[in-house]
């Protein structure tokens, strides 16, 4: 009877906590609204540890409050000398053993989850004859302040916006090309550093229902100080059902170079070729070597949700960005690398860039 009572109590603590915590944050960003297996497992660990910790705090607080209320020096006690107690073996054993037990309870799932989340064996399974594998692999390259996502098995490349299928493990190869960054999609799971020394590997999974709640668009962050615009090194994750994703891949693979019809855009294209093409590519199958890929691939630029990861996606902001990128992302690598542009040229460039689309081509 008593047993059930404590169990019930514990459960309700869990429930209340989970409720209180999940009231927090936005579904596209918060770790408290886990949208996939990894995040969920981590969330469960967070809840388990929080419950233990709240218990610890509660015990300490109770003893503490009792002590400071009951034993305050009262009027008339000025000369009272309390009994000088040396210690108590029994008590000391109790408060050594109980924490050890609590920590063991915590340690077991910790170790299991650690190994679970580091399991990327499928990634290294031999590619099939045609060079592809079952596992979906994305190569992530972090750069001062932009992200590149390459789908090596499909020869497709995007920047700033990662596209992933739902309900399927997505494996990542992570590295940085200049300084260290860290790849973090809070709602989908914990972060992993992109080192300059090596390639890190991990996986994430996106739940379709949760993705829908988040509007199929998650926020990604750079979580390692990397310079002035570290705070602005955001990216977005677009989730698609597996079929839609396959569709998307094949559209990307067959994307034709943009052929604008609008006169302004045609002029813009010329300008772009003169000033910008040395860094930016406009087709998703950019075959240049990594070192030559100095800037985000703009093949899908017209379909993005943000400019440079942070600005609203419209022509006005686009022109602002091209006019003075430094103002929006201090220390970025684009500032001052192209000629001064007048308003008309900006309009033309904007028209051209906005016409860069793959899916609605």
């Amino acid at each position, binding site marked *: 009877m008593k047993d059930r009572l404590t169990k019930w109590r514990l459960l309700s603590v869990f429930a209340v906590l989970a409720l209180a915590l999940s009231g*927090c*944050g*936005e579904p596209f960003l*918060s*770790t408290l609204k886990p949208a996939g297996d990894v*995040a969920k497992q981590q969330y469960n*660990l*967070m809840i388990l540890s929080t419950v233990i*910790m709240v218990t610890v*705090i509660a015990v300490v607080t109770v*003893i*503490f409050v009792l002590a*400071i209320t009951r*034993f*305050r*020096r009262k009027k008339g006690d000025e000369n*009272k*000398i*309390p009994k*000088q*107690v*040396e*210690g*108590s073996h029994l008590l*000391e054993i109790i*408060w*050594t053993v109980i*924490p*050890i037990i609590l*920590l063991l309870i915590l*340690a077991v799932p*910790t*170790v299991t*989850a*650690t190994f*679970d*989340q*580091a399991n990327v064996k499928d990634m290294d399974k031999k590619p099939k004859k045609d060079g592809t594998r079952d596992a979906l692999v994305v190569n992530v390259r972090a750069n001062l302040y932009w992200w590149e996502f390459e789908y090596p098995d499909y020869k497709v490349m995007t920047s700033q916006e990662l596209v992933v299928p739902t309900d399927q493990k997505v494996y990542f190869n992570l590295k940085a090309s200049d*300084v*260290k960054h*860290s790849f973090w999609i*809070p709602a989908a*799971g*914990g*972060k*992993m*550093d992109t*080192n*300059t*020394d090596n390639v890190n590997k991990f996986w994430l999974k996106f739940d379709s229902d949760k993705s829908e709640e988040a509007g199929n668009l998650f*926020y990604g962050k*750079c979580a*390692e*100080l990397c*310079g*002035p615009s*570290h*705070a602005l090194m955001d990216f977005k994750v677009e989730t698609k059902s597996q079929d839609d994703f396959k569709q998307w891949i094949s559209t990307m693979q067959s994307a034709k170079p943009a052929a604008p019809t609008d006169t302004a855009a045609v002029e813009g294209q010329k300008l772009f070729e003169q000033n910008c093409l040395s860094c930016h590519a406009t087709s998703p199958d950019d075959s240049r070597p990594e070192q030559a890929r100095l800037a985000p691939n703009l093949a899908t630029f017209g379909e993005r949700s943000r400019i440079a990861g*942070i600005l609203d996606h419209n022509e006005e902001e686009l022109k602002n960005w091209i006019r003075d990128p430094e103002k929006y992302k*201090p220390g970025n690598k684009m500032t001052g690398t192209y000629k001064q542009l007048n308003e008309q040229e900006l309009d033309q460039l904007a028209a051209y860039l906005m016409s860069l689309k793959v899916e609605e081509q």
Partner: protein
Amino acid sequence: MSTIAQKRGFASTVWDYLTTVDHKKIAILYLIAGGIFFLMGGVEAMMIRAQLAVPNNDFVSAGLFNELLTMHGTTMIFLAAMPLLLAFMNAIMPLQIGARDVAFPFVNALGFWLFFFGGLFLNLSWFLGGAPDAGWTSYASLSLASEGHGIDFYALGLQISGFGTLMGGINFLVTIINMRAPGMTYMRMPLFTWTTFVASALILFAFPPLTASIFMLTFDRMFGANFFNVAAGGNTIIWEHFFWIFGHPEVYILILPAFGIFSEIFSTFSRKRLFGYSSMVFATVLIGFLGFMVWAHHMFTVGLGPVANAIFAVATMAIAVPTGIKIFNWLLTIWGGSIKFTVPMLYAVAFIPSFVAGGVTGVMQAVAPADYQYHDSYFIVAHFHYVIVGGVVFALLAGTHFYWPKMFGTMLSEKIGKFTFVFFFIGFHLTFFVQHFLGLMGMPRRVWTFLPGQGLDTGNLVSSIGAAFMAVGVISLLINVVITSVKNERVGNDPWEDGRTLEWAISSPAPFYNFKQLPLVRGLDAYWLEKMEGKTTLTPAEPIGDIHMPNSSFVPFVISLGLFIAAFGAMYHVDDKAWALPVLIGGLVITFGAMIYRSLKDDHGFHIHKEELMEENDDKGVKA
């Protein structure tokens, strides 16, 4: 007094402090210098919070923000918290063990001046082309990429002040091992002395890895080496390991002395001996030991692999056990006591729930997979400010009030002190509690600004308001200090009336030779034992005799100054400045010249003669 005489008085006071080797005066130097750095770090924190109060703010620029956060962290840890703790160690520890002096008075002074010049050098970066901006951790890829001289200031400044700290550590260790009064066995040492001992041992072993890696950073940036240059075969993870092999013990270097201060305060104001003294000692040593085995918990996301992550996760959790032992021992110390809520006691009492909250989030972070979420988010910021501010800074504030009479002979106002406490306490929780949730909601740390529409606005505003409360608290403390110093009401040996350890048996402040006769220690809480037997003074262990004292010396200042000068040479050497190399060499010549001078010149110190001691008929020292 004529103005001329006063001026000379001032100049001679300054000279006195520049050359002093008296641990009590060095303590005051540490207190002042550390206090000033604390204010600077605090002002930097206020600017950080001002910038983050609202989204898309442009109160400071992105570059300046990175400088602010780097200098805030570096200043607070290296130049404020640690030196302030060293101040209390210097002021109190030798008195607690009944020593006339520290083991190496000269080295003690040298340690201070190295710290001081290192800190000065670091902070001059603000005026000489920009402060370091790669975070206090200064991870290698970014710190090599960072332009200007900011990181050079960081490397050289920390190197110099690090030497100073190392010397301080060795000095305290030898003092405690060799200079205890008769009868002061290890297991009768007050807890603050014990924690000083363990923290000093941590300094001894934690600083060398930092020294080594800072040398590497210096060589890479200034002399063309390739330790961290991946293109030439280098490896940036080496820096991360070294930084944390140092960095984790460092946080225990900070918290252990804080624990010591609280132990003294709890037993004093509960009028009870410390509950479970021997397990407290044991826990202290165990924390120190474990502190060296867990550093990779700062690197869970680096990609060390599941085996390393699992091992370090479990090892980290283990530290909760000895820390818990301490917490419960304190609770049982006040349990059944007669608690008097003085200002120091208020901080001590507030420390318990605050620190436990911070400690348990530490254990949550030890859960490696969950830490993939917490790492480099505001959750971490919340964790470490809970333990550092709720632990270390509370201890510093408590210690300031508690030991003020012993250091200066006057009592800080309890009224203003309570005001300070209330504002600081409320402000602290306001500022940092919400940061847990900001982190969980996806806010990375070290961000210069944040965009609206991510659910982060309210939390940040609350946090900034809290910071303002803390500032009010700190300012009221400054006012308190000024008022108290102006009033200058002298107090006696044992102004708190319930002092238990040796320092409360001698006058406030202590005479420069500390104890006229070395006391005989007959148990834990030596002075309390005597008081319980109705005595007001200690039992002497020796007849009055000549006391040997060290001579003052200007050499420590000069040695440190030399390194300070040399650092400029090393730094500007990169810019191909013609004067840089001569300055580097010149500075080193000054340093080594002063060292050689010191070793060639005999310095036997001087004696205070028995007769002079007998003449002083006041209550200083021990009466026969």
